[in-house]
Structures are given as C-alpha cells and as structure tokens.
C-alpha cells in the first residue's frame, strides 16, 4: 500500500468500494483521480483502458462474468460514453459504477473543459444515469446512493468528484 496515501480521502473511497464488494477496476485517468488510481494499481488489478466507452465495455463484460465493476474517467469521457450507456448498459441492465472527475464544473478551468463542465450533470440526467456530486464528508452516503441504484435497480450510476476531493 502506498504509505503516503494511507490517510487520504482516496484511500477512504477505496476502502468503501471494497466494503461494497467492487472488484473490477478499469478506466481512463484524470489528474483528479491520480491518487485513487495509484492505490488501485498497488492493491488491485487496475486495467488501463484506451477510451472511456471501451472501459465501459470491458467493465460490462466483467459484470456478465460475475464481477462488480468500477470505471474511472474524467467528465470529458462522458462524450464518448453516451452511446455505450444508452445502447448497452441502460437497456441491458448491466449496472456499473462510474467515478467521474469533474473538470470545469463550478471552477475556473481550461477552455476545453468549459462546455462539458457545464453540461455533464445535464447529459447524465438526459440519458437517465443517476449521479451524486460528492463532497467532503459525504462520500459514504453518496456512494451508498450509487450502490443502491446499481443493486436494487440494476442501473449504472455515477459518483461525480470535484477538484481536490481525492487529492
């Protein structure tokens, strides 16, 4: 275990994910998620995917084989994920947990993040993906909300992570 990360919020989230039984991890990185990915690389087999929809496909295949998968991505990846979610996960009832970092969301950010930062939550709402914008102290409850959607409704859900929350 990376010693410098033991007390971090990223480690807290990792432990919560394990408590909920998540056991397949893939995704495309974001700097906001780098500590979590470092922990996953050290503790689990984290599979770096080449694109976000491809990570969703991989996670979906793992679900069919009995795993509880998690996909990590930056909100820019929502763009290429919409079709996978709309024409695979949501209609097939293949639920995955997405942990999505929120570039350009209620913060100053680089121009390439402006539009997606403003529209990420709306896009998820429009296609029917439940989500939580998590905050310090709210991780446990927000993750539980996502897990309930996944386990009770078999709907993919997203935990949205602001800048700075996970290191």
């Amino acid at each position, binding site marked *: 275990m990376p010693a410098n990360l033991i007390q971090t919020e990223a480690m807290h989230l990792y432990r919560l994910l394990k408590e909920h039984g998540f056991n397949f991890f893939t995704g495309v990185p974001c700097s906001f998620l780098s500590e979590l990915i470092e922990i996953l690389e050290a503790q689990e087999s984290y599979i770096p995917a080449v694109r976000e929809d491809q990570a969703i*496909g991989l996670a979906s*295949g793992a679900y069919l084989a009995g795993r509880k998968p998690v996909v990590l991505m930056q909100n820019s990846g929502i763009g290429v994920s919409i*079709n996978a979610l709309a*024409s695979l996960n949501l209609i097939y*009832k293949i639920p995955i947990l997405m942990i999505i970092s929120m570039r350009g969301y209620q913060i100053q950010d680089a121009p390439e993040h402006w539009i997606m930062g403003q529209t990420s939550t709306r896009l998820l709402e429009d296609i029917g993906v439940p989500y939580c914008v998590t905050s310090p102290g709210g991780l446990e409850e927000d993750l539980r909300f996502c897990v309930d959607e996944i386990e009770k409704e078999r709907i993919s859900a997203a935990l949205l992570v602001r800048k700075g929350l996970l290191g």
Partner: protein
Amino acid sequence: MKRLEAIEIVSEKLRDYLIFHTNGHICRESAMVRDRKENFYMIGSMGLAPSLALGTALVRPDKKVAVYDGDGSVLMNMGNLAMVGVLKPKNFLHIVFDNEAYGSTGDQRTISRDVPLEKIAQSCGYSLIEKVSLNEDLRAPLERCLAYREGPVFLLIKVLSSDGNACARIQLNPSQITDRFMSAMMG
C-alpha cells in the same frame, strides 16, 4: 463465401464457446443459425463487442470466449485490438466477418479493402493470425484456430457483401439477453 454460410460453419464448431456478437446482421444471422443462451447479442454500442468479450475472458479464464465481429465494428474501435493484444487472454478467439461494407445500413463501403485488419491485430500482439480469402475453404484455418491454446487468436474471413438475406431482428429484449447469458455463465 456468403457470411451466413461462414457463420454456419463456425458456429457448428464453437458449441462450447461463449459468443459475443457485434450489432447488425451478424447478430441476426447467428441467432437464425443457432440461437443459444451462451450467445450475447449486442444490438447497439457498435465497436464494443470485443471489449465485452475481453472483460468476460479475463474474469473467466476457464471459459472459451469468442467474438463475432465485423470490419466496420473493428475499424470503429481499433483500440480493442491493442487491449486484447496486450492483455493476452489465452481463451480469446476474435473472428471478423469482413465484407468490406456496412452491411446493415445498405452496404456502404468501409475501408477494410485497403486496411489489412489482420496485420494490425498481429502488430497489437495477437498470438495467432489466420486470414481466409473469399474463395478459400474456411475449415482448415478454423481448425488451426480452435486447436491453438495460447490465444488471443484472430481469424479474418472475407465474405461477400450484399448477400440479400435480411434476417429478422433479435426477438429477445436486451435485459433478457443479459439474464439468459448470465444464467449460462453460472451453469
């Protein structure tokens, strides 16, 4: 050879495989040839059939996993070839029915006539590559693929475009496909 004929020959030999299907006519023809609970028909999300198959193959190395893919689908998400080639699941058989066309939308041409997909798969790290041209017999290359135990294996079969047989759509609803396939996995 027509694609339907190729699917008949392949499916006859893949009775102990989990088979993931790309969307469009490949799904429908395979369902018509032999519908079974071990078939996963991916009716949308074009390009992601190998991703699904890879996820399952990695989690269940005890199962034989195949993909029925198309040239348009491979071209749409070529990153799959790289991931499969790098992760090297031994139990992974990637079959591409290559008609050099988007057959399900009216046979508009793809670019696979000029892009040798099997060479890309080879460069990505697939262990065995077989290519069957239009007038070649599929059976011997198929047998070599099935006998090979150190996958991933890539089998490209050139087939005729516009074979004129429009098959019925998949009758199961998507969540039924999931449930049926998962019950087959348990068994």
